[in-house]
């Protein structure tokens, strides 16, 4: 089990109904963690995964998670 800090932004935050949460998980990658969170927060199920950052650096969905990582899930961006 790993302890992971998750932060949700914009539409994700409204769907999850929390801005941040600490989870204990067996998810090995960010992709697995997102799928697990979609089961925990059903309102997230309609969203496809977009971008993420781990410890404030843009990261790949298949990067292995380390205990203590902070994972930021970003909805598709819409600047400008």
């Amino acid at each position, binding site marked *: 089990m790993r302890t992971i800090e998750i932060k949700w932004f914009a539409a994700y935050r409204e769907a999850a109904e929390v801005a941040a949460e600490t989870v204990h998980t067996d998810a090995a990658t960010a992709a697995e963690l997102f799928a697990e969170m979609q089961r925990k927060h059903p309102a997230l199920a309609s969203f496809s*995964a977009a971008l993420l950052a781990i410890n404030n650096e*843009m990261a790949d969905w298949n990067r292995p998670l380390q205990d203590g990582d902070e994972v930021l899930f970003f*909805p598709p*961006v819409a600047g400008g």
Partner: protein
Amino acid sequence: MSKSAISGSGTNGFWLADSAIDSAAFREHLGDESCGACVIFEGWVRNHNEGRSVLRLAYEAHAPMALKEGNIILQEAMQKFAITKAAAVHRQGELALTEAAVVVGVASAHRDAAFHACRYIIDEIKHRLPIWKKEYYADGTAEWVNCRQCGTSHAHGETHV
């Protein structure tokens, strides 16, 4: 740029602004005696989107990464095009109609490079910056723009660390 010019945070040419962008102060940041061209793009808040009447917008940014990625985009433009100066500022928080949501400025010796670099910067900002736009409509509803239809197809396939 002086702190009085833009109320917000940022360094190295890219800023997040909490209140209206001072275009005159922004333009001063681009001035250079070697430059014969200056292209400035402003993205404004308009009153309609996809057939719906828009009353106002709100932008939410993840500031630490928006600032970092914004400066990376400016550096990329400096490397790709023959330009001398590049700067950009993006608003966050609540915006009214006609306000500038984003301003991009480029100065160069000749105009071609400035036009191309300005286009590059605004396109990359729209695709890569962790900033999200919520539209408030005349019918009383509000929605995060693009949040459902884009998915992974919208991702650039590039990561910048």
